[in-house]
């Protein structure tokens, strides 16, 4: 069967790609567009390592078909910093040592940004439940939750 032609934007840049029907958005991001910052931990939507936003909505890119990206705006970890300026969440993750191995970090950052865009003043419990779809096996979540709360406070003040 012929491949599908898809036009979308990724991190604001126009992209075009050809994909098979069964290709996921994650497959295309990683294997075709070379954006390997988005990770595959399970391919079943259980770990959140592949989190991206599509038209500002948080999704697991392993659960979305690439053809569904037609006309959409996809945002990945590679677009989170602005030039040399890290996003406050990225900075706070570093300041709080909120990562150890770092494989889950891109997914957490994307998910946390989506939270703060929706709820700029989350409680600890709200942060924990919002991030419950992102698995981290290294940190016990303590420093991640603190980093998100600290970034939220800074972003509200800014």
């Amino acid at each position, binding site marked *: 069967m012929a491949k599908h032609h898809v036009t979308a934007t990724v991190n604001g840049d126009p992209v075009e790609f050809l994909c098979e029907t069964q290709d996921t958005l994650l497959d295309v991001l990683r294997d075709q567009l070379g954006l390997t910052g988005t990770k595959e931990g*399970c391919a079943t939507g259980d770990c959140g390592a592949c989190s991206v936003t599509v038209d500002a909505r948080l999704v697991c890119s392993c659960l979305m078909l690439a053809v569904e990206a037609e006309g959409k705006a996809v945002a990945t970890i*590679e677009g989170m910093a602005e030039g040399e300026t890290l996003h406050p969440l990225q900075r706070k993750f570093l300041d709080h040592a909120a990562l*150890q*191995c*770092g494989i889950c970090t891109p997914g957490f950052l994307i998910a946390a940004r989506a939270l703060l865009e929706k709820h700029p003043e989350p409680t600890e419990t709200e942060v924990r439940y919002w991030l419950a779809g992102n698995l981290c096996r290294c940190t016990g979540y303590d420093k991640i939750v603190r980093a998100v709360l600290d970034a939220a406070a800074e972003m509200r003040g800014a």
Partner: protein
Amino acid sequence: MQQKVKTNGAAAFDWVGTRPVRPDGVDKVTGRARFGADLAMQGQLIGKVLRSPHPHARIRSIDTSAAAALPGVKAIVTRDDFKDQPSQLIPAGEQMINYRDVVRNVMAREKALYEGHAVAAVAATSAGIAKQALKLIEVDYEVLPHVIDVVEAMRPGAPLLHEGMITAGVEPAPKTPSNVAKRVEVGHGDVAVGLRHADVVVERTFTTQPVHQGYIEPHACVASVSEDGQADVWCTTQGHWMVRAQCARLLGWETSRIRVTASEIGGGFGAKTVVYLEPLALALAKKARRPVKMVMTREEVFRASGPTSGAHVRVKVGARLDGRIVAAEAELKYQAGAFPGSPVQPGCMCAFAPYDIENVKVVGYDVVTNRPKVAAYRAPGAPISEFAVECVVDDIAARLGMSPIELRLKNAAKQGTKAAYGPKLGPVGFIETLEAARAHDHWRAPLGKNQGRGVASGFWFNVGGETSVSLQLNEDGTLSLTVGTPDIGGLRASMCMMAAEELGVDIESIRVQIGDTGQLGFNFLTGGSRATFSSGMATVEAAREVIREACKRAAKLWELPEDAVEYRKGAVRPAGANAGKHAPLTLRDIAGLAGKTGGPIAGYARINAQGAAPSFGTHIADVEVDPETGKVTVVRYTAIQDAGRAIHPSYVEGQYQGGVAQGIGWALNEEYIYGPDGRLQNPGFLDYRVPVASDLPMIDTVIVEVPNPRHPYGVRGVGETPIIPPLAAVANAVADATGVRFADLPMSPPRVLAALDDARARGKAKI
């Protein structure tokens, strides 16, 4: 809340003990860091593995002809592509390996020994074609009866995995084969005599289930082999020299032909200390003459890698009315999975190690079952045995009406204590962790309804081992540091900090990398909590070599004897009254003059790091038990542990917190669930439930510092101990809340509810 308890005079350091941003941090928050699956090579093929659907089956034949004929298939490997290996035990990390078994685990030979056992591998031009090819491979299996449970596997008449296996460590040797690979025993004194002096004796039997290390990054590698046989492997591993050695052995290639580069590693916890895909990818790449990339699916990770042992444990402890433990014994039966090599030996060594006991005996059995071969998991073997012991110690305290902390203090191992496994302990911080627990406000905080509090301790011995590090002084005075232990959780930060401390330079002037196997001498892997200890020791030695050389060059320039100069705060200075008044020469000055004073300046340390020292921890857990559903929630947690010295306290705290989360998962949720057909029923994160953010509270930490005198900065390994205490701390808290002792893990809601209902019927439940 994070706290620190120092027991030595406050040493003043510029870098050690501070919290700078890690050097690899920006790459990891921007998606630049390249993990195992992030590399693609030009022209690469995709490799996939055919796995046995049967837990136990003889492989009569494998027909790959139809698969080989499929367009796009470039290579297929089976057992025929790997030479058999003789039985020979070789030290590999905290455990021994036997290449006879390794070659059979990477590719089944006579039999498939577990569901998921690799039977063939294909490399094709796309993943789709590779998967299609797997379906065309015809394997003729003779299905055999299987055995999953450790106690059943030990019974006479159980299906035998290895028909010729005679239990080692038994005199005289048994005449008939069994699934018991080995019997081990440690101890001293006479338990029967000791028990005669006991006023209370508690004996219990415990079971734990296999749990997976659960790293978020699946195993992945890319291999290429050139026409002249030079091979390159990129892979996610805790030890690339180990990958090189094992691949060379399995493929019969010379070591120098294989160069292994460690990618960033997305968690390992012990399980990335063995090879699965790498030898297959190399064999396929050689056959296909194209690079081959292989990545496991999550399902493959669960079915075919890790996990750790499930176990059956009996513990008996006797104590006097004053709380002194007079005798202790334990019997540990550990599942090894399909091949010998469970962590029962360290389980035996650690079981009673926190205590000074005159009469102690621990017997362990290493038992094969039709499950994936176990891999190391954070303090391999210790969480299981220490869980059982720490529950019994708690019961003893309750029977005596003593505080469990006081009971532990009364029996705590200290400097000079003879451990059950032989050696006398050096300076250790166990008592300090207990005292810190007793002084912590957590210990006195009021509990709510349906809540309980538990305390438990843990011990891990830690290791050192072979290590190589190089440190180059660059022309502009900056430094390039190359270490060989993969960085899983902040190693590069602590290496830079120790080097900067030694050299008296800014941490930003040092760039650190993890070298490949061609860049450094042998490095033993990141495991045994050895990386900060051993690579740190080697980094300090390399830095001192740079300093010595810098002094030599300055002395030459000043025409002074070498002992008339000294190195202080980043510069060489004249020392003593007769040295004259030379302006200090900074490292930068000396670097700039290197070409005129003797050439490049570098330090290269190659050591076999000795003097690793144990780390003790004591944890306090508060739980709330839902009387209607049986769900246990951890509502407050404090982890206290002796770090020796915390080089970067944030990452030490992170080790404590991460170990706690894994231990809580082990205690409450995680388990491998097998059906009667011998197949794993929960090979995914939906049904194999690791703790998520909403399951846990903040995890408070207290870093105790009783320096290790054998390390230049006092470092002890810290990574493994924190997973040990949570199992019993949570179980003891549940017992406190409910009045019911849970001896079987995990304490999942259905189990807890059934036990509560049973206890209620007998009028024994507190809730």
